[in-house]
């Protein structure tokens, strides 16, 4: 109960500041926190990246293993995206099977990659109908200070861009790299008291009623969108959020991918 009151006070503080045109950390409404991307940080993974957005810290590792294709796509590799909200990363996270937030995060990142057709799944076929590469994208949250989805999506595409296919390890031959066809980038905005803010931190996420993630591609098309939160959005707010998504997505792509 005591904690709930503190929580309310913090939300009110965030909202009041925003009404007066400011954010707690002094950023502009359309400004990201500092982004830092370290690639190839995990030796045991075929691709990896650690993405920090402000204090948010996400490690993505990609492993490739041979496996059976889906019966309805016998000539295509399989992408499996998983997110672990390990309790190390946040007092809000708990041990146990993935909850709805980690499931949503993994599925949104996954859909962004699929929607953009960034990976040519046909190139991951080893033997049609029998054996294909399973691409496991594992999102491991280390520190949750908000906007996990943008960090996770950026970590995923950064990892995928430098995949080493482990042919030798499994006694196979074939190309060792995986040419990527696109670079989807997720940009999340929130609506607080009628204002649209990009890259919400943890307190801003809590203070916001609605959040929209917009995933856009190199050519400016959209390859995924997800509204979350218990509020509603107006058509013109969505239009603004999409505009920000495409613009900021382009900036991030240019700088980090």
């Amino acid at each position, binding site marked *: 109960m005591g904690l709930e009151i503190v929580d309310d006070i913090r939300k009110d503080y965030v909202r009041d500041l925003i009404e007066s045109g400011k954010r707690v950390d002094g950023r502009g409404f359309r400004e990201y926190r500092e982004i830092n991307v370290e690639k190839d940080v995990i030796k045991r993974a075929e691709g990896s990246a650690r993405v920090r957005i402000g204090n948010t810290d996400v490690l993505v590792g990609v492993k490739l293993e041979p496996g059976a294709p889906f019966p309805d796509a016998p000539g295509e590799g399989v992408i499996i995206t998983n997110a672990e909200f390990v309790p190390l990363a946040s007092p809000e996270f708990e041990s146990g099977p*993935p909850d709805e937030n980690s*499931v949503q995060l993994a*599925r949104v990142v996954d859909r962004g990659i699929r929607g953009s057709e960034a990976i040519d799944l046909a190139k991951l076929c080893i033997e049609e109908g029998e054996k294909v590469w399973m691409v496991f994208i594992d999102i491991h949250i280390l520190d949750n200070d908000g906007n996990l989805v943008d960090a996770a999506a950026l970590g995923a595409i950064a990892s995928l861009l430098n995949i080493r296919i482990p042919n030798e390890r499994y006694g196979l031959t074939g190309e060792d790299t995986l040419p990527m066809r696109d670079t989807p980038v997720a940009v999340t905005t929130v609506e607080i008291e009628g204002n649209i803010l990009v890259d919400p931190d943890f307190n801003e996420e809590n203070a916001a009623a609605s959040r929209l993630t917009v995933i856009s591609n190199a050519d400016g098309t959209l390859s995924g*969108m997800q509204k979350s939160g218990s509020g*509603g959005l107006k058509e013109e707010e969505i239009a603004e959020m999409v505009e920000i998504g495409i613009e900021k997505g382009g900036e991030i792509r240019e700088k980090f991918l």
Partner: protein
Amino acid sequence: MKEGKEEIELIKEGKRLDGRGFDELRPIKIEVGVLKRADGSCYFELGDNKVIAAVYGPREMHPRHAQDAKMAVVKFRYNMAPFSVDDRKRPGPDRRSVEISKVSREALDPVIMREYYPKTAIDVYVEILQSDAGTRTAGINAASIALADAGIPMKDLVSSVAVGKIDGEIVLDLNAIEDNHGEADMPVAMVARTNTITLLQMDGRLEREEFERGLKLAMGACHQIYELQRAALIDRYSESVDVGEGEA
């Protein structure tokens, strides 16, 4: 939206495979109050989708530490019957149903006067009995009516429909074959009276202009569905409401 699948022509001579125009809904059938034990319920057909929603509550919230001292907690469970799809679905929640349950709950939250019933739970259950793409939108439509049938105070109903892209065209309310072979799918939910969007997801690939056009198309159709929802509630305790030119 799946790569590598065989290409199918989904539009012939300006008509979709089931004869619909681009901006045409599938037939809708609504029955209110179909279950005895539930506090509110609704059976909803959208083309070949058959869904049923039930509402229990406001009732005691378990476990107690999950109670909210200021408002009711809405719980939403979207569940597919094992026989509702071509390949039998294993019973129990999977990742897809967990996500749909979450976004559906968030689609309804904005209209429910949760502050009237602090510390309680309002349980919304949606069962998909037969599936043909669009089950989450049908479930939200049904749940919205079931909430009203249960007497839960609401600001307004929530109406939901998907739009998508097939053979390069933006069309309304994809069925399963269109969803499987199309280029994009975008479910939307809306509070009709205020044009407030409460659910928005997008899957596949769309130009920005296509997205904006699709959103407008969905919003228009939500108004249509809203009228059918209202009519069904007005007719409650009389008979069911049949709509659309299909055989539904």
